[in-house]
């Protein structure tokens, strides 16, 4: 009996721990986003108006750090990539629609959660409801879109190293150098 009980608790723990890790990582993510200033409308619109480059600096530094670490761990066999399949119709058109919302709302899906955390009522009252409505509309239209426009120019789960048919590091190293050059250029331009 005691052993059975222990087993059940053990199983519960295994199903709860991914959720607990999600929460913990989310808290760290939200903390970092708020400390970076990108949970604020003014900072995000400043980026889109090209007057404040905080958001691009954060994203490029995160890509640089993340890319080197993930590809190093992939080389060691510690992690597997999780690449999203895509197409021109999906990512090109969807991305352009997203950008309209990005500029009108002034937050993106990650930063709006942070904006709610630091008290932005436009995010909480207007933006959140809008995202739910927009997502629901897409779910209703999905059967009509999935085998048409979303498949236009399909390229699957392609990565740049696969596209160029080269070793990962042949892309990772120049990409890292390029990001550093862009960041130095942004700093030298005083942005």
């Amino acid at each position, binding site marked *: 009996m005691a052993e059975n009980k222990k087993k059940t608790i053990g199983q519960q723990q295994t199903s709860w721990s991914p959720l607990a890790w999600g929460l913990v*990582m989310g808290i760290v993510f939200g903390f970092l986003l708020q400390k970076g200033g990108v949970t604020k409308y003014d900072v995000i619109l400043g980026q889109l108006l090209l007057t404040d480059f905080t958001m691009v600096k954060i994203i490029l530094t995160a890509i640089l750090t993340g890319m080197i670490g993930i590809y190093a761990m992939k080389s060691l066999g510690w992690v597997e990539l999780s690449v999203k399949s895509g197409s021109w119709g999906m990512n090109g058109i*969807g991305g352009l629609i997203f950008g309209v919302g990005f500029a009108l709302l002034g937050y993106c899906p990650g930063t709006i959660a942070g904006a709610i955390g630091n008290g932005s009522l436009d995010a909480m009252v*207007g933006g959140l409801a809008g995202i739910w409505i927009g997502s629901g509309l*897409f779910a209703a239209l999905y059967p009509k879109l999935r085998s048409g426009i979303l498949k236009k120019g399909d390229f699957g789960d392609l990565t740049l190293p696969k596209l160029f048919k080269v070793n990962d590091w042949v892309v990772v190293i120049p990409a890292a150098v390029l990001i550093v050059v862009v960041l130095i250029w942004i700093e030298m331009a005083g942005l």
Partner: protein
Amino acid sequence: MNFLTEVQWSPYAVGVGIGVLSWLSFLISKKPLGTSTSYAKTSGMIERFFRGPDVGLRPYYQKIKLDIDWQWMLVMGIVFGSLLSALLSGDFSFEWVPALWLSAFGYTPILRIIIAMIGGIFLGFGSRWADGCTSGHGISGALQLAVSSWISAIAFFASGILVAQILFRLIAG
């Protein structure tokens, strides 16, 4: 521990922090950081609550599954993490109209809420269409050098920059 009470950190420190967090999410949770699917799940769960279980049978909800998962908890965590950071630094405040909006359009809370909601509709619709957002494509996908993510990220900023310029330099200007 003074840095915890600072209002703003260097963007490079924050970027490195998010990069390291992405290593941990791959290592521990075997998932890339992303957020936007969770809003679609919540939207589906709200609709299912009001309109009944048939909502869950829609093909899109069969695909993404209407459940509380790792990413949903991640989004919840972002709210609390940001709240914690803002409280520690005294940066928390309830605000209807951001300063930049105020300088361009005056104190117009209702207009701001309406535009925020229209923006949210485009953002929710577009993130489902593109299958990701600034986190899932812009950071996690881009750092894996995914072609889908680089196309998405470039499109997010291209149309975002265009619409922001129209809004602030043509309409408000």
